[in-house]
């Protein structure tokens, strides 16, 4: 539905406007012009009803199209002004399609209402993201990453995820973090562009006397400013070195040593501090009314390696001891214990590099 609305209210009028640049300007006589009111359950909307006569190629035609964007909306102000202008000067001009002279329009520009056509774009993007996430989740379900230990199934049928003893699936894990910053930047750009575009449109409406209250726009504007600041931060982060991180094995049992190797592409000498940390978090979710609340508690945060030596930052390897007396990874429907390897590079007066890899910690080997 959103796509259809976007096409009807924005894309099609925009295409018609571009095509009408070659239409012929022809004198016309305004027979009638009025603002029509459409009453609905959500309030009234308005449209321009106009009738004009023009001559083209020796024939007389009657036109009734004011502009390509002809949907009704709650904006009455500009429509009243347009109708008043038409009534005050009955002799006007219209633009005729030379390929089909029966098609004509009085105003071949874009009206401010066309901005409403962008509103569904946000929801279309959200819908696309949800569909992509859903497809990826379906694919992930069909590709088991690790076998399940005999930990049983939850009452709801969802398997309690605990790294299993099958040695065949243990092995090194390599993660390239280069694409993550770009994905964040693209996602944030789209959201910022659409959000701030919408805010700008509302501000223009307000300036023309037809917009929502200023405090409403102000609230949206504050959010837009926050998005813009985040976008600037994300843009700067694109210039950061990207890391290729290799874990010697994943899953890794409690009480064993994990080797973490890193290799930066880009100028790693920009870091003034590099650290690798091992973290363990409890993650729990519960419902409060219609909202789902997720809480986290850090149970372990250990610096496995840190350095300020420039020659050690470009690439290296560190040993991370997985405590024997800790809890293994666990994941059920609403509760989880998550282990992570966190690579954190600090760059003075610049966004830091911070990459996380979820580590699967298995029970003690027996």
């Amino acid at each position, binding site marked *: 539905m959103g796509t259809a609305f976007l096409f009807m209210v924005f894309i099609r009028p925009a295409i018609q406007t571009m095509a009408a640049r070659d239409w012929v300007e022809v004198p016309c006589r305004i027979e009638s012009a009025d603002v029509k009111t459409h009453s609905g359950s959500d309030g009234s909307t308005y449209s321009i009803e106009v009738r004009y006569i023009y001559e083209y190629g020796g024939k007389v035609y009657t036109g009734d199209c004011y502009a390509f964007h002809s949907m009704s909306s709650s904006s009455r102000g500009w429509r009243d002004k347009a109708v008043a202008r038409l009534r005050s000067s009955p002799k006007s001009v219209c633009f005729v399609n030379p390929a089909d002279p029966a098609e004509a329009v009085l105003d071949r520009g874009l009206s401010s209402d066309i901005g409403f056509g962008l509103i569904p774009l946000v929801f279309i993007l959200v819908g696309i993201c949800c569909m992509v996430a859903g497809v990826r989740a379906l694919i992930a379900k069909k590709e088991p990453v690790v076998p399940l230990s005999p930990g049983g199934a939850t009452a709801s049928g969802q398997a309690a995820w*605990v790294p299993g003893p099958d040695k065949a699936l243990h092995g090194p894990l390599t993660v390239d973090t280069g694409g993550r910053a770009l994905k964040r930047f693209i996602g944030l750009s789209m959201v910022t562009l659409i959000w701030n575009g919408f805010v700008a449109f509302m501000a223009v409406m307000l300036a023309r006397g037809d917009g929502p209250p200023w405090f409403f726009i102000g609230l949206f504007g504050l959010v837009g400013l926050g998005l813009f600041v985040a976008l600037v931060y994300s843009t700067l982060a694109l210039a950061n070195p990207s890391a290729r991180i290799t874990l010697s094995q994943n899953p890794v049992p409690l009480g064993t040593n994990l080797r973490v190797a890193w290799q930066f592409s880009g100028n790693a000498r920009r870091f003034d501090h590099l650290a690798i940390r091992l973290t363990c978090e409890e993650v*729990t979710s519960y419902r409060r009314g219609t909202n789902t609340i997720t809480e986290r508690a850090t149970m372990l945060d250990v610096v496995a390696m840190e350095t300020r030596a420039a020659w050690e930052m470009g690439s290296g390897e560190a040993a991370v001891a997985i405590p024997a007396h800790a*809890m293994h990874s*666990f994941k059920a429907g609403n509760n989880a214990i998550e282990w992570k390897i966190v690579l954190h590079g600090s760059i003075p007066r610049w966004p830091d590099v911070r990459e996380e890899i979820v580590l699967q910690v298995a029970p003690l080997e027996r």
Partner: protein
Amino acid sequence: MNGFEILTQDGKAAFEPGETIHGLLRWEGITPPGSIELRLFWHTRGKGTEDSGVAERVPIPGAGPAGEYRFRFCAPSAPYSYEGKLLSILWGIEAVPEHGEPSEPLMIIIGPGWSKVRMRPGKERSMSNLVDEIFEEENRADEPPG
């Protein structure tokens, strides 16, 4: 009124992963008589919505209104019994009759060293701090009581 009694051998309450859990189920007053299912299960407790899972089931068909049954479970390798800040994981054995309410569960511990894993929220520490803490914990465990 349904009455169940679940006992483990020698009253043992803690087991290592992979260890066999021997026990006895007694029941009386089951009306109407039917089958009973013994379950070894885990569930979470704490801030989050409860999750649960059944590791092993033992059906006792045609149980009758009263009787006893010697059972045997293999303690799973995971999840360990766990006590943290937001979340705890607990193991238990319960009897579920075909008709009527399940029994009160017998709570047990399954974990390395016959104990539950306890973790407390951690501030940032280095690897050497962590090793020191582990040594301290082991020394405390070795100390005689009192």
